[in-house]
């Protein structure tokens, strides 16, 4: 009898064991979902819009604001308002309503469809819609639509220096200013948001999810192969082809990751080599590394056209006097940069680069004939000083104030040159930014979590098989890329790693660059950590994603 009971008990254990294990697994998942859903809903929606299962990291990291994950220069990566809210100002007498502020929430995915309305080719963008309240009813087609990006000049950056942009402020009532504009997705950095401007799609749909993304087994950068990883149409792709490539389409910017706001160039079937003028270093180790000569790197050169004359223009050193005076003192310096001795590269950290670029714009607009005929042309411009200063000195620094002042002071010059070459009342400009910047931790009181320290915490806890492979492939401010095979060989799961990271304290992942205060050292480092694949199933997003999300997902379903 006793044996029979023992046998029954053993049988019950065998049957129950999988159930118990499943319950524990579900319990773990439940806890991770609860942590994720403790975050404000809009942060999760932005994250969902920015995520692609095939290309994004495997674990989502979210700190409580103002904390952030970063190492080296200050990042601008996360779903928070301070990096995601941006100016969006439309100006164009005769085409754009002079009404000042509009309060409706909009995103940068709305820019391309609005261009479509302006030039008469409606664009059914995956995530955007025309900003019709900005448009004068019954207006004809402008000769030129210009999109100007003040890189890194998010609303928080402008709000930190409210007196530094009088020119833009003075123009608000002459156009339409979207007071609640945001980039729309997270993480917001240059490549993905410029692609959102161009495609009317968030990263989820255009495919450029971050400055490090996964292609198969490799981690790479979004423009490694030119525009080949941008697998959604841009408005310029469609419009230029629709008009038989008669429109003049061009981008005057700095680095290839900004080209997503324009086009695939001749990679697009029936497309031509649109004009692109950049200054990116060939083979640079980091994205955004600038050179001083206008060029196209070999990954993009086959698909775009670099006009020959652009390097015949005055060099940046010709604008040193202007930069010198800009900070209020003619002392041969602009903040840290000694202009007399500055290399061209150092000069790029001064306002000298702004008129240097505006001179380029004037030359290209004139010589290429932008706005000369009745076929609307498309011009895209990225000015990058504000972003550079934000990384180098922070948005709270005096150089940032002066950088905004210098950028703002150039606005009348840009308007004047367009009036002169295209004609007053013949053009439209949309001015925006691709992201904001992270406040200096000394100002915000943020605890800064070190990505390498997060990686090492995972490694030391889970990677115990003593081989050379690492579980953690790469840690970004918002993601951890995981080698799933290596993780499996160590008997770990994403849920377990995420659950562990929720117990890690700020003191344990303090990288030392911005030391965590002793008072905060024992606090949890993260508000939420969860497998990225969980985003689709978060209960707090159910019923919300369709309202805020995509009309037409382009991610494939073929295996």
């Amino acid at each position, binding site marked *: 009898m006793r044996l029979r009971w023992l046998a029954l008990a053993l049988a019950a254990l065998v049957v129950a064991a999988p159930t118990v294990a499943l319950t524990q697994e579900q319990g773990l998942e439940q806890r991770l979902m609860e942590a994720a859903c403790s975050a404000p809903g809009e942060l999760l929606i932005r994250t969902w819009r920015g995520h*692609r*299962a*095939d*290309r994004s990291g495997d674990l989502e990291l979210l700190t409580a604001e103002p904390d952030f994950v970063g190492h080296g220069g200050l990042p601008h990566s996360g779903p928070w308002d301070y990096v995601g809210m941006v100016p969006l100002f439309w100006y164009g007498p005769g085409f754009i309503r002079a009404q000042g502020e509009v309060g409706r929430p909009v995103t940068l995915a709305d820019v391309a469809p609005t261009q479509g309305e302006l030039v008469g080719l409606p664009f059914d963008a995956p995530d955007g819609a025309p900003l019709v309240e900005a448009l004068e009813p019954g207006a004809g087609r402008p000769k030129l639509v210009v999109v100007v990006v003040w890189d890194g000049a998010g609303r928080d950056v402008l709000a930190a220096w409210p007196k530094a942009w009088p020119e833009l402020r003075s123009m608000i009532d002459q156009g339409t200013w979207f007071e609640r504009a945001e980039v729309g997705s997270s993480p917001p950095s240059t490549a993905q948001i410029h692609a959102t401007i161009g495609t009317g799609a968030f990263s*989820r749909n255009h495919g450029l999810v971050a400055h490090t993304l*996964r*292609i*198969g*087994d*490799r981690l*790479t950068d979004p423009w*490694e*192969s030119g525009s*080949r*990883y941008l*697998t*959604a*149409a841009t408005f310029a*792709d*469609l419009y*230029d*082809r629709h008009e038989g*490539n*008669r429109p*003049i389409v061009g981008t005057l910017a700095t680095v290839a990751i900004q080209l997503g706001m324009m086009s*695939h160039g*001749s*990679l*697009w*079937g*029936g*497309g*031509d*080599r649109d004009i692109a003028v950049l200054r990116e270093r060939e083979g640079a180790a980091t994205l955004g590394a600038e050179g001083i000569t206008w*060029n*196209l*790197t*070999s990954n993009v*050169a*086959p*698909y775009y056209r*670099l*006009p*020959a*004359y*652009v*390097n015949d223009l005055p060099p940046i050193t010709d604008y040193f006097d202007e930069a010198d005076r800009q900070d209020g003192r003619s002392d041969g310096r602009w903040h840290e940069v000694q202009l007399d001795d500055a290399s061209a590269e150092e000069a790029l950290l001064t306002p000298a680069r702004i008129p240097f670029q505006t001179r380029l714009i004037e030359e290209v607009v004139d010589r290429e*004939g932008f706005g*000369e005929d009745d076929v609307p042309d498309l011009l895209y411009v990225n000015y990058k000083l504000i972003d550079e200063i934000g990384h180098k000195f922070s948005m709270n620094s005096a150089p940032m104030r002066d950088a905004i002042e210098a950028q703002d002071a150039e606005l009348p010059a840009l308007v004047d040159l367009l009036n002169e070459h295209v004609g007053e009342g013949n053009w439209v400009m949309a001015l925006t930014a691709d992201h904001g910047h992270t406040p200096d931790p000394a100002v915000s009181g943020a605890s800064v979590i070190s990505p390498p320290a997060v990686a090492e915490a995972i490694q030391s806890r889970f990677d115990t098989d003593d081989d050379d492979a690492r579980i953690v492939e790469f840690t970004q401010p918002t993601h951890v890329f995981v080698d*799933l*095979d290596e993780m499996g060989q160590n008997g770990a799961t994403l849920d377990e790693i995420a659950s562990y990271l929720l117990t890690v304290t700020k003191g344990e992942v303090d990288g030392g660059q911005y030391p965590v205060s002793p008072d905060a050292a024992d606090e949890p480092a993260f508000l939420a950590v969860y497998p990225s*694949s969980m985003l689709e199933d978060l209960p707090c997003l159910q019923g919300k994603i369709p309202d805020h999300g995509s009309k*037409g*997902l*382009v*991610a*494939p*379903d*073929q*295996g």
Partner: protein
Amino acid sequence: MRLPRHLPGRARSRAAIVPAVVVALGLAACTSGGDGAPDERSPTTSPPPVTSAESYVFTDAAGIEARLTLRGEGAELTVRNDSGGVLPKPGLFVLDARDGVRTTWRVLDAAPVPDGERASFEVERSLVPEARHIGLVVLLLGGEDFGAFVPPQPGDGA
């Protein structure tokens, strides 16, 4: 090969699929040149659109090379795998050059490609877009987006 990550499964797609008529190999190389040198010309009008791209090339730093050749109403996809691991089964989608709408092209009998091997597959193309209206052709492996093929470039004589 790392486990495929699953992709969101919704897509706009066009229904009509035409069975392929597939012929032999014989692929034309058609990657473009372009050396980054400044263009001495500054034309005020652009060259006419490419309207007859029939062969597309895909190369990847991981050691993957694929070629897609349009033939009649079908196509042939050839994948060469020197990646060091097995490639999951291939797939394709195209973006219509006129409106950007995505359409899946079905790779018949799609199968994984072992390392060091080359495999050819017949492809069923949809009625829309026609070849002259292809905007991008995108390679999928295991359902993951590996990026666009390169069409012949203006000046290639395509």
